[in-house]
């Protein structure tokens, strides 16, 4: 009886899975991992066929996300592992292990800023500010966090030009970040704008009451799928009003033409691979925000990562033109082909996650 049942269950499992994998249609993307999945047509018939096919089979295994969740739960609850794929949850938030401090990367960041300063920015008013990742706020010493003091020390020692540092660490708390994502909440940035305003000499007129708080639920942040553990999705909040709607947005996507967009929010991104792409259409090499109703004719250039996408539109009441540059997508050596560096104010605004992985900046 026992043996017959063992054989029956085993055969049912392997043949059932075989049939399911053959019959079920391949998925195009994994929303939880935020990437395209390998399709059967992508499998090349060469000497690496077995590896290619295995990658395909892994990507397209039926109920893939449930199996991954099962692994995560086994790791965390049966074996008592502290993290699953580097992600761990406390009662307060979900975190991704970012450890240790990569000194070479921090120095690479300084070097990048210095090079850009030397190439384009002498004579400009230049600032840099670092956005803390969520790990900075962990008070529990059981978890590994990088040495943030050492990061700032290295940055300060190695950034050589006339560039002022604006600390926003005290302007943020863990509540200012999404639970399932690494990004901050747009509606919680008042103190950050205030701090930037004090250094960059503009008046902070941000008032949450002036905006309509639009929301999207469920927002499955980057950590939601990666952690593969049970958690509630977030509600993504974005701020809108007539002033925001009035902003003119141009994307310089293929380095030749400017594409003018309607509005700063790409609502078609909601529910897509990354709903945070709502802000300024996600990662684009160069984005220009123009505001003919701005209080001044000052212009700003922001070298940034995706955190800035939700913040910068809120600065448009001061600046008539803001140019956002994503150095992950455009090489710093060719910037003068697209941007006329002409005494604009400049802000380098990067999260500690990028500072610790600056090798991805071009």
């Amino acid at each position, binding site marked *: 009886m*026992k043996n017959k049942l063992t054989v029956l269950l085993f055969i049912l499992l392997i043949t059932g899975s075989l049939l399911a994998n053959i019959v079920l249609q391949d998925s195009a993307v994994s929303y939880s991992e935020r990437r395209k999945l390998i399709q059967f047509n992508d499998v090349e018939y060469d000497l690496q066929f077995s590896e290619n096919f295995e990658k395909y089979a892994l990507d397209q295994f039926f109920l893939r996300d449930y199996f991954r969740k099962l692994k995560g739960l086994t790791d965390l609850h049966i074996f*008592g592992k502290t993290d699953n794929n580097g992600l761990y949850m406390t009662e307060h938030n979900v975190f991704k292990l970012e450890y240790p401090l990569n000194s070479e990367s921090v120095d690479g960041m300084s070097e990048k800023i210095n090079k850009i300063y030397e190439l384009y920015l002498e004579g400009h008013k230049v600032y840099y500010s670092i956005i803390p990742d969520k790990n900075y706020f962990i008070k529990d010493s059981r978890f590994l966090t990088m040495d943030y003091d050492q990061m700032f020390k290295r940055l300060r020692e190695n950034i050589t030009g006339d560039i002022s540092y604006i600390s926003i660490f005290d302007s943020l708390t863990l509540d200012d970040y999404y639970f399932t994502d690494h990004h901050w909440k747009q509606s919680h940035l008042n103190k950050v704008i205030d701090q930037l305003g004090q250094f960059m000499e503009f008046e902070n007129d941000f008032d949450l009451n002036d905006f309509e708080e639009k929301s999207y639920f469920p927002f499955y942040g980057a950590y939601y799928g990666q952690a593969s553990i049970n958690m509630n999705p977030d509600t993504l909040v974005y701020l809108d009003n007539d002033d925001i709607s009035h902003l003119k947005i141009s994307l310089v996507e293929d380095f030749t033409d400017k594409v003018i967009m309607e509005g700063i929010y790409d609502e078609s991104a909601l529910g897509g691979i*990354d709903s945070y792409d709502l802000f300024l259409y996600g990662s684009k090499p160069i984005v220009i925000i123009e505001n003919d109703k701005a209080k001044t004719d000052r212009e700003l250039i922001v070298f940034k990562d995706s955190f800035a996408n939700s913040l910068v539109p809120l600065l448009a009441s001061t600046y008539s033109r803001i140019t956002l540059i994503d150095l992950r997508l455009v090489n710093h050596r060719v910037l003068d082909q697209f941007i006329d560096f002409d005494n604009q104010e400049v802000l380098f605004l990067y999260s500690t996650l990028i500072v610790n992985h600056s090798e991805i900046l071009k």
Partner: protein
Amino acid sequence: MVFSSISFIYYFLPVILIIYFSVPKPLKNMVLLVGSLIFYAFSEPVYVLLLLFSSLVDFIHGIIIENNRGNKKAKRALISSIVINIALLAFFKYSDFIILNINTIFDMNIHSLGLRLPVGISFYTFQTMSYTIDVYRGQAKVQRNLLKLATYVSLFPQLIAGPIVRYRDIQEQIDSRESSYDLFAGGISRFVIGLSKKVILANTLGELSVLISNTGSPSVIFYWMGAIAFTLQIYFDFSGYSDMAIGLGRMFGFKFMENFNYPYISKSITEFWRRWHMSLSSWFRDYVYIPLGGNRGTKISWLRNILIVWLLTGLWHGASWNFIIWGLFFGLILVLEKVFLLKILEKTPGVFNHIYVIFLVIISFVIFNSDNLCSAFLNLKGMFGFLDIPFINRETVYYLRSYLGFFIVAFAGTTPMMKMGFDRLKKRGTWKIMEFIQPAGLLTLMIIVTGYIVDSSFNPFLYFRF
């Protein structure tokens, strides 16, 4: 294709099982041969010809030996077969190592061949050699059916990672074997346990071992953790593969020899090698050590025989000096044990014997796991506090806490504790509950393992999106 892959478990295995059990008996070997060749060609589309060549060579030599039994031609055929097999192994596995050493010693600049090692060549050449030697010795019947011999050589359950199954042990099963629910279910049980050992324990401990070797914040305890993690990883990896091979063999009606028998509970290194990779140690004993004279003759010749065997054992594991040193390390300890240590160990409390064995085994695997001798030396210095590093640090504590559950399960898994637990249940009469629990448990384990395999492809596209 490896057993712990989706391609194998959920594509290849169900298909070959369905075909195998659908065809009449006379076609079963043909199904196994074709299936095994497809299995091998999936990873080695070119070297599958080498596998067939190796089978053909030993098929022909076996017949020549049998047809000329008792005269010199038989001996010449045996020597020819051994030379061809060793030449194949030497060419594909050791040529670059030999060239590297010639270049170093004679300050020459011979270009390396850069050949990719054919999967499983170390296993199947030893199997084919054992066939011709056994035919020569009259310990195995000659096989006059090429299909059957090729089925033995290429049999996918044991093709790529052993155990080194000798032809004489399964010659009757090649001709005729029975299948039953009991044997098949036993095979499933063994396969799932082996798969779990490999995927859950070995892979996770391997991940920790790699993480530790790449750390920027080492500590003395971290070095030890890495060494222990690798010692456990290699056991669960290798014994897991052997379990899977034995289990798959049973599904198809074969009974392969055991390859591991809880080696980490040994009380001496001599005992350890009776329990670790038993098919390899018995191969070297029967085909190298005893033909060299074994422990007969003078002490010097006996010492020489042991060191030759362990030099070859090290070399069999890989073409690198650290494998040779690893083999000789064990050879030396075995000599010392045979000369005087075993007598001392017999009088020592068991716990000290275990510590002695585990300590030496950990040290040996540090040598085994290092890229080269310098790195082995560096790792040993780290373990014994000869590097300027702290005894323990935050990173060590974090990973120790995080992987503690895996360590505990792994430690328990290196002992017969769990098996004894099952046996006790049987004796108490509660075994009837197991009628349902065991199949359900195996199914659950299989599903969890699938989760681990699927998650191994976890590849978030995150850095780009910060």
